[in-house]
């Protein structure tokens, strides 16, 4: 079984979020980039588990610049067999999905796995776009996936519950919490990652459908108003008269 796992970088979850150049760019000063947690903990680790059970090969793909090679090596250290980097800065979801779909189409994969979203752009667009471009079924926000031959049994979240579905390969799937448990790379993995193949391919031509023109931060919260623990009537009155939420 050939599995392609989409890997994106994301700022560490404790990063201070600030903007620069007149609020048009994310301020990377002092920011540590990590593998997007949904891509790493759930998509990549589940792909590795499936390979361990059924054999096959796990390839990661990243649309990014040479600066992304360190997070790609991390994915290799966790256990991916090889990595591909499409040499362009990922800006717009569609043009990024297009590069991944183009590579996946010409190299043939049984499963394309993504995280359910990145923690910086939260767009949740990648899986659906790749699937549409490749004309494949897409199972979004999956919490469990078992393979039986070419048939996958997948649990996915739906509004107000869970659904169990079956689908045959090839398909695209986005992974959420529950799919797998985080793996910490060991020293052997880190050493091995240095010599695993990381292939750089040039992007194919594709238009950008969207662009971020500026960013802003939420208004700073006004001071917290403290209420005595014995005076819940006052809190209720504030919630009713001041906040007007009850």
């Amino acid at each position, binding site marked *: 079984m050939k599995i392609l796992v989409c890997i994106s970088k994301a700022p560490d979850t404790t990063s201070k979020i600030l903007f620069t150049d007149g609020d048009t760019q994310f301020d990377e000063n002092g920011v540590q980039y990590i593998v997007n947690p949904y891509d790493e903990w759930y998509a990549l680790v589940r792909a590795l588990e499936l390979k361990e059970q059924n054999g096959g090969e796990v390839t990661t793909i990243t649309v990014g610049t040479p600066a992304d090679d360190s997070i790609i090596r991390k994915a290799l250290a966790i256990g991916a067999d090889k990595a591909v980097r499409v040499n362009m800065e990922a800006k717009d979801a569609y043009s990024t999905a297009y590069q991944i779909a183009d590579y996946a189409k010409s190299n043939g994969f049984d499963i394309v796995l993504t995280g359910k979203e990145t923690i910086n752009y939260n767009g949740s667009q990648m*899986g659906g776009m790749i699937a549409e471009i490749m004309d494949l*079924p*897409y199972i979004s926000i999956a919490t469990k996936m078992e393979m039986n031959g070419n048939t996958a049994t997948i649990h996915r979240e739906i509004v107000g519950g869970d659904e169990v579905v079956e689908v045959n390969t090839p398909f695209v799937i986005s992974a959420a919490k529950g799919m797998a448990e985080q793996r910490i790379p060991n020293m052997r993995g880190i050493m091995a990652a240095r010599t695993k193949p990381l292939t750089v391919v040039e992007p194919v031509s594709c238009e950008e459908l969207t662009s971020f023109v500026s960013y802003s931060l939420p208004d700073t919260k006004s001071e917290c108003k403290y209420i005595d623990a014995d005076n819940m009537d006052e809190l209720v009155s504030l919630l009713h008269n001041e906040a007007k939420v009850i």
Partner: protein
Amino acid sequence: MSVIVYIDTLNGTVAKSGLEAVYYGSKIGDTTVVTNGSVSDDELAKVGNYGASKILINRNLTENNPAQLSKLIQSAVDKTGADTVVVAYDLIGKAVASRVSAGMKAGLAAGAIDLPVADGTIKVNVFSGKAFGNVKVNTPKKVIGLTVNSLSPEEIGGTVTIEDFNVDCGTSAITIKSVEKQEGDILLTEAELVVSAGRGLKGPENWGMVEELAQTLGAATACSRPVADIGWRPHHEHVGQTGYVVRPNLYIAAGISGAIQHLAGVNGSKTIVVINTDPEAPFFKAADYGIIGDAFEVLPKLNEAIKKFKANN
């Protein structure tokens, strides 16, 4: 401007998030709703009250398959010549909107929280609620994924015509084997009021007071990540960066310290009340109202105070 709004009516009702999307669409232009399944005309008529002039319904399509829904929406766009597609950006909407965007090569503003402004940009949530981005769609047609609970739909009092739209949407490659609906009437992601609790409650046996307060308020219940991870509460209650992102009018947090990852899931709440024994808990910095005290004492007292308020109002 002409708008197509897709709403999910598969369970026989128009959800609040659907009415939000209809109302949002009607603020942009003449709005046609597209949906599928066997929902009644009476229920569908609701959307007229929120600004839609027409409904196209595919009654042959009885499952929510994103590939088929994407075809349905694109057929509706072809029929009406719409330049904007609006979809509530919930679990199904995310899969549908991203497919539609790629299928039509129309830019997707994912996670919109406001109407497009004069220069055409749309404000969206980024950095897990810690910032906003202004997205420009570079294509003539656009798709907008509207964040749930980001506006309050108002009744306009209009009427709507309903037209069968049984276009061919292809076959589904996905077979649904079973569906399990979670218990409780109020969906966490749609709830206007949420009562949430964390490790400070010491054990799952103490959640009775959280549930009682939620019941009195008519609120949904939620929890922090550690509580879901150790199995005190189900995962579908987990609010935070890696769980659900909620935007209620009122979020009451008891015994949750307020780690940055939890705050990312609740930042969009209108009013936050924090109950914690530790005056240094970081959550107080994000709170509108704070109570320094033991949740075991405060929650029952708050429950009584709200009961009293409800009896008098």
